[in-house]
């Protein structure tokens, strides 16, 4: 409990640039310490889960406790591959942005498990409503890298016709709803999608992601309210990566409680999970999916993770947090942790890892070359300028036809 001794309380992070980074205020419970309730548990019986942390992998890469999702080695390697590919893709995209080939980019470094493990735990016909930091979903669903790059370059093959800023992907085919630049709006839309699926009586579900920062938007509240009232079959993920641009999670309300706790007020089962633990993320997502498909309603999941890089290519995080913060983050790196697990369980080796890394780099490079051949933001082909008047409406109304004429395009 906080006492406003000197006026208004303004939350402050534990450390600022120039200071020694210190995460000792973060409690990391041992892997396996949280039990796995049956999916039809009374939500009231598991309120504590919102304050604990579900972890499967311990520091030695061993699997602990009831939340082991029981994945095969092949599945785990597929997960590792998708996370590594996501990271390789991010790395290249930042490079091309720095080269001026596009305007903007956002990495998901350190948060790959959040997207990849969830996507693997869902069915392909479940609909994802992501934010801009879950590119891993598309990659886990084998959506072609070149399609993603075409969007980033706004080139002639960009399915979004050059209209969206980079990384605002959309793919109906991959069950990946159009990313919005407006924070939070997808969260409540996802609940509507789930309500429609329920009304149709089928067992599809929707999954939505939101940053801990954006939980302060009204849409977060709408989502929880509607999900609770109509018991919509949806999974509401909160990606708590500790930062919202320059604001630490305390500015979003994370100082005095957890983000998982937000679900308690709506009677929604709410789990808090180690977001850098591929197995744990997979397990809780599966649990939530089973609930949704069984007609048991929504689940809220807080994924506790860390934004390793700057917010975007426009950001310089050393202005507001110690540069070395990432290195002391207590939950490690999701790729390293899954790799270690695969190695200690005898399914992987440093050599195979290195070989895969190179292969993926090459895959990204090849896709990049192909995509660049279709144009980049400032060079090469793009959609004809006249198309900028299309798709405002299903049919172009007279005033837009007139404007297209005036534009002379």
């Amino acid at each position: 409990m906080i006492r406003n001794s000197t006026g208004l309380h303004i939350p402050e992070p534990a450390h600022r640039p120039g200071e020694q980074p210190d995460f000792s205020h973060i409690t990391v419970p041992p892997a396996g310490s949280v039990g796995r309730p049956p999916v039809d548990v009374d939500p009231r019986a598991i309120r504590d889960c919102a304050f604990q942390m579900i972890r499967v992998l311990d520091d030695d890469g061993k699997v602990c406790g009831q939340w082991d999702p029981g994945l095969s080695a092949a599945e785990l390697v597929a997960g590792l591959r998708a996370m590594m590919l996501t990271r390789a893709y991010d790395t290249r995209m930042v490079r091309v942005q720095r080269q001026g080939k596009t305007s903007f980019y956002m990495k998901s470094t350190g948060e790959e498990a959040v997207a990849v493990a969830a996507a693997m735990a869902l069915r392909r016909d479940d609909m994802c409503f992501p934010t801009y930091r879950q590119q891993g979903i598309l990659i886990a669903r084998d959506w072609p890298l070149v399609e993603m790059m075409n969007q980033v370059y706004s080139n002639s093959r960009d399915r979004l016709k050059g209209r969206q800023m980079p990384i605002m992907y959309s793919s109906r085919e991959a069950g990946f709803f159009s990313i919005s630049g407006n924070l939070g709006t997808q969260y409540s839309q996802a609940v509507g999608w789930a309500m429609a699926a329920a009304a149709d009586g089928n067992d599809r579900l929707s999954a939505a992601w939101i940053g801990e920062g954006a939980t302060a938007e009204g849409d977060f509240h709408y989502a929880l309210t509607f999900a609770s009232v109509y018991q919509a079959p949806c999974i509401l993920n909160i990606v708590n990566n500790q930062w919202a641009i320059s604001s630490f999670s305390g500015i979003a309300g994370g100082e005095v409680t957890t983000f998982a706790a937000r679900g308690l007020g709506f009677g929604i089962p709410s789990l808090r999970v180690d977001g850098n633990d591929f197995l744990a993320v997979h397990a809780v997502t599966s649990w939530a999916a089973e609930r949704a498909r069984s007609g048991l309603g929504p689940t809220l999941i807080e994924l506790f993770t860390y934004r390793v890089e700057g917010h975007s290519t426009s950001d310089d995080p050393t202005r507001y947090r110690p540069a070395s913060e990432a290195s002391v983050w207590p939950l490690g790196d999701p790729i390293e942790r899954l790799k270690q697990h695969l190695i200690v369980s005898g399914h992987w080796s440093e050599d195979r890892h290195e070989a895969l890394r190179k292969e993926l780099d090459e895959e990204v490079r090849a896709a990049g070359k192909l995509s660049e051949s279709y144009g980049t933001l400032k060079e090469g082909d793009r959609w004809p300028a006249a198309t900028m008047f299309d798709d405002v409406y299903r049919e172009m109304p007279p005033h837009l036809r007139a404007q297209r004429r005036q534009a002379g395009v």
Partner: protein
Amino acid sequence: MPSMSMIEAINSAMDVALARDPDVMIFGQDVGFFGGVFRATEHLQQRYGKQRVFDAPISEGGIIATAIGMGAYGKRPVVEIQFADYIYPATDQIVSEAARLRYRTGGEWWSPITIRSPYGGGIYGGQTHSQSPEGIFTHVAGLKTVIPSNPYDAKGLLIAAIEDDDPVLFFEPKRLYNGPFDGHHDRPVQSWAGHVDAEVPAEHYAVPLGKARTVRAGDEITILAYGTMVHVALCAAQESGIDADIIDLRTLIPLDLDAIVESVSRTGRCVIVHEATRTSGFGAELAALVQEHCFFALEAPIERVTGWDTPYPHAFEWEYFPGPQRVGEALKRVVSI
């Protein structure tokens, strides 16, 4: 042909839509069991079941957001915002999402949603039950805005709006729900019974979006109006004895510019009437377009007769409302130039 009030015609439109298309879903505050505070959805839950017609939390943003999500799934949601004054909490979902979804996805997704909402004054609703916010939405590319003035149009336009694959704001002049209203608030209330535009087919029909209608043919001056103001304009023309060509726009976006230009080119004079506050209201756009397209035909400045640039004041609503006297004076002024 049955005679229907405007509220009955609106109810009938939704009834028809629910019956024809299993993807139509209707929700909003009090629209389920109760049938809506204005009774627009009366009996619909009883007829089509709770899963297709139901109550929503008091969360306009959530209502529009979930409607967009349902639309993305493949449904065709029709939602009610209880009063147009309460649409603002949903602005972001309407403006940033519904309006732009088709564009930003290159046509991969869209929002086939209809947002119904009673608007306008004249019921002593004060500043939070009287507003006419249509102008704001006409500024947003990707939205359509429809406002009927009579039962026949209300049903046909609402069916067209529901069947339209773009997001449509359907503002209903609440003062017309139960009878035509010419602005003479001190006279006995009228009923739609017997009115020619209250003969409404029970079955399905559509009045196409984007087509205006001449409600009175005349040569001296053009009046552009929509919703309640169509009736006020008719009354003003009659009382002032001025031979006005009165165009009921019916759809603001897309606008039937041809009909407007044809008329003003002929009459050379134009008065625009709406209930919303004047500054940056839709009348501004109309005036801008008319002067642009009919400049050399115009013999006098275009006048706007509108609500004043103040909130809608409870005790002074008849001083605020642009009634037939104010419209009539404007007509006289403009024709005398």
